């Protein structure tokens, strides 16, 4: 391990690399030459139109309108279903047990006819 310690100590801070002659003298100029020329001016000359300004708000409004429409549609369907269910419940509650008993007695209907009419109604 001692040898390895010495190697790291010996070469610490020493760069084994070189560069072409005059590289760092011209480096700033070379880098500046490859930068896009008009980049900084470009931003200030870009004309911001009214549409560009309001575009995000229009998109947000459209999104909200879409969400509202979907929610409205979903709620509308649900309330229709509820109404139908309520109507059916109301219909069913009209026929009380007493009513059915008296109906069976007076009309002389047998069990088979009741069963048949129930199956027929469901179909």
């Amino acid at each position, binding site marked *: *391990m001692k*040898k*390895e*310690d010495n*190697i*790291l100590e010996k*070469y*610490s*801070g*020493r*760069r*084994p*690399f*070189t*560069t*072409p002659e005059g590289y*760092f003298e011209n*480096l*700033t100029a*070379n*880098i*500046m030459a*490859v*930068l*896009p020329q008009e*980049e*900084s*001016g470009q*931003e*200030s000359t870009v004309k911001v139109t009214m549409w560009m300004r309001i575009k995000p708000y229009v998109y947000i409004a459209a999104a909200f309108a879409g969400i509202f429409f979907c929610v409205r549609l979903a709620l509308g369907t649900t309330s229709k279903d509820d109404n139908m269910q309520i109507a059916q419940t109301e219909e069913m509650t009209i026929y009380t047990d007493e009513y059915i008993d008296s109906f069976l007695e007076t009309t002389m209907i047998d069990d088979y006819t009741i069963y048949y009419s129930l199956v027929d109604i469901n179909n």
Partner: protein
Amino acid sequence: MAAKMAYDEKKILEMLREDSISKRRAFEAIVNNFSEQLYWQIRHMVLSHDDANDILQNTFIKAWLNIDSFMGYSKISTWLYRIAVNETLTFLNRQQRTISIDIESDETDIKNTLESDPYFDGDETEIMLQKAIAALPDKQRLVFNMKYFNEMTYEEISEALGTSVGALKASYHIAVKKIKSFFDNSD
């Protein structure tokens, strides 16, 4: 790193908010101040001068294109180091994808690249050292190069990489241990 700076960062930041001519002049001062240290940082990672030069140019182009989004919350050096590190790691990842991932062949590649590079003047031991460094994970390699070759303090590296001093010390010591064991095993 900071001692070398002969420019006023506050003034540079003010100029960056002014008209396009002032902005370009301010950016030129930034390039002038940081290009050399960034070059060495990149060069130690990619080894070849041409690659280092390309990555350095890309770093400054990216910085220039995003200069308006630099709000001055961190130092310019920190910002530039991060761009340079990202550019370098992207380059290395791309290179690793195209070249064989066989470690043996990687080591031979490094040896051949360095021996044939007219801008490398190291001896056999330094080639071995570069091979040992190249075998380190990216983060450890970065930290090792910054500390060992660029002689930056942990505080400076911490500022540049946004990593805690404790984590950097750990990374450096692990890297040193791995390099020593690389030499040990190669005997």
